[in-house]
């Protein structure tokens, strides 16, 4: 199992890509593999405010339903509308086409406190 070095993680398997005060969030390959074939992704509305470590949606597969969390607080600026028609993108390309939401972070420095790739892999035992 691997995780891209340039991303930050939550133990609940969300990745965060930092670009100034914009944070893009999705779930890791490990999480997508665990869930198996994803059939639905429930995402927030643009403009919704999220607290740090707050729940922003749900991901469903033929196997299970899981909550989605954001490691940083902020306002949702964009959601990945492609996932409504093609939720399987989360399985096939979790770090790129399978991204879920973009946030304008309240405090971009908070993102640096999230787990590094190595810490994520260690904490999740993979």
């Amino acid at each position: 199992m691997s995780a891209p070095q340039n991303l930050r993680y939550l133990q609940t398997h969300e990745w965060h890509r930092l670009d100034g005060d914009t944070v893009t969030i999705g779930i890791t390959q490990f999480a997508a593999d665990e869930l198996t074939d994803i059939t639905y992704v429930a995402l927030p509305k643009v403009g919704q405010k999220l607290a740090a470590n707050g729940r922003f949606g749900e991901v469903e597969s033929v196997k299970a339903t899981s909550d989605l969390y954001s490691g940083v607080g902020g306002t949702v600026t964009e959601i990945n509308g492609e996932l409504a028609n093609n939720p399987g993108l989360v399985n096939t390309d979790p770090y790129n086409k399978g991204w879920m939401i973009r946030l304008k972070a309240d405090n971009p420095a908070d993102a640096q406190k999230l787990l590094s790739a190595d810490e994520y892999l260690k904490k999740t035992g993979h």
Partner: protein
Amino acid sequence: MDGLKRTPFYDFHVAAGAKVVDFAGWQMPLLYRGIVDEHEQTRNSGSVFDVSHMGRLYFRGKGAGAFLDHVLTRNVAAMKVGQSRYSLVCNSTGGVMDDVIVSRDERHWLLVCNASNRKKLSRYFAAVVQEKSFDVEIDDRTESTAMAAVQGPKVIDKLSEVLPTDLKAMKRYTFANDEVMMTRYTVSRSGYTGEDGVELILPAKAAGMAMKMLGEHTDRPGATIRPAGLGARDTLRLEAGMPLYGHELSETSDPLSSGLAWAVDLGGKDFVGAEALRELMGRGLKRRLVGLEMEGRRIARQGSAVMQNGQTVGEVTSGTFGPTLGKSVAMAFVEVGIAEGAAVEVDLKGARNPATVVKLPFYKRESSSK
């Protein structure tokens, strides 16, 4: 995974790249390539499932038929050699202890039960034998044998190339004993996927050879028969409207409400639970098992409330996204007044998702063979 049992196919699962999970005390393959892929392979061609975790109990002795008639809801003593029947084991209040398939052979009876209920049934059967002094010996051969389900529209043709048994002549719910390459096996025309197919029981030692005998490399794309795991087994049985113990069946629910009156012979004989079930018939059922077609792609899960006009009218027992149907579907117990076609809502953590009550099964294969 200490203390977990491995089936005789375990090495095959690992070599085939299976994701292995703990299921009822066994290390079982959840999936190999993906649940949807394996589901579609089963509907379109063929799959082999390891079902060795299911219990295989053999009954011998003069009183075996009478004993089984006493503990099973189905009239089985009148069965002919070579026949199999789906039946239930009920407790004295009519609750379901397990659903099983019983087969009559020349010198014994075979009962296949759920892995999760095997120990419970063994204890219960032993107690009944002692209490009622039935002349029957029970032999649990679950761990000395292997069992595989081979399911899909192309498997009868494919297996006919490698097995001496005339599978095409066999009707559904019949079985035969045969031998191939010095290995004895039992094959029955049955399954849990909504497709045609067979279930095979063979000595544990022959498991590796059996996988090779499927005649080609099952791990190759395009193979007629490829391995499938428990994940696909669940989506397949759900589309086919088949009940699963712990979901549609439990000790606190009765078989009549679960739509299994056809597997309960209330007319002809007495069996454990018969009295309670006759009483229930007299009073009338309060709820029944139905299908739900969900609007949209969200999945209803076991325990989700079914609502109508703001009132709770039922509860979901199983739900999934049906790959063949292309729809989110569920099974649920609802009040008997709620008819097919009725509009309901399923509570998904506070969000009300519209759904329509439909007849089970959701999926029925086209072929006429039964």
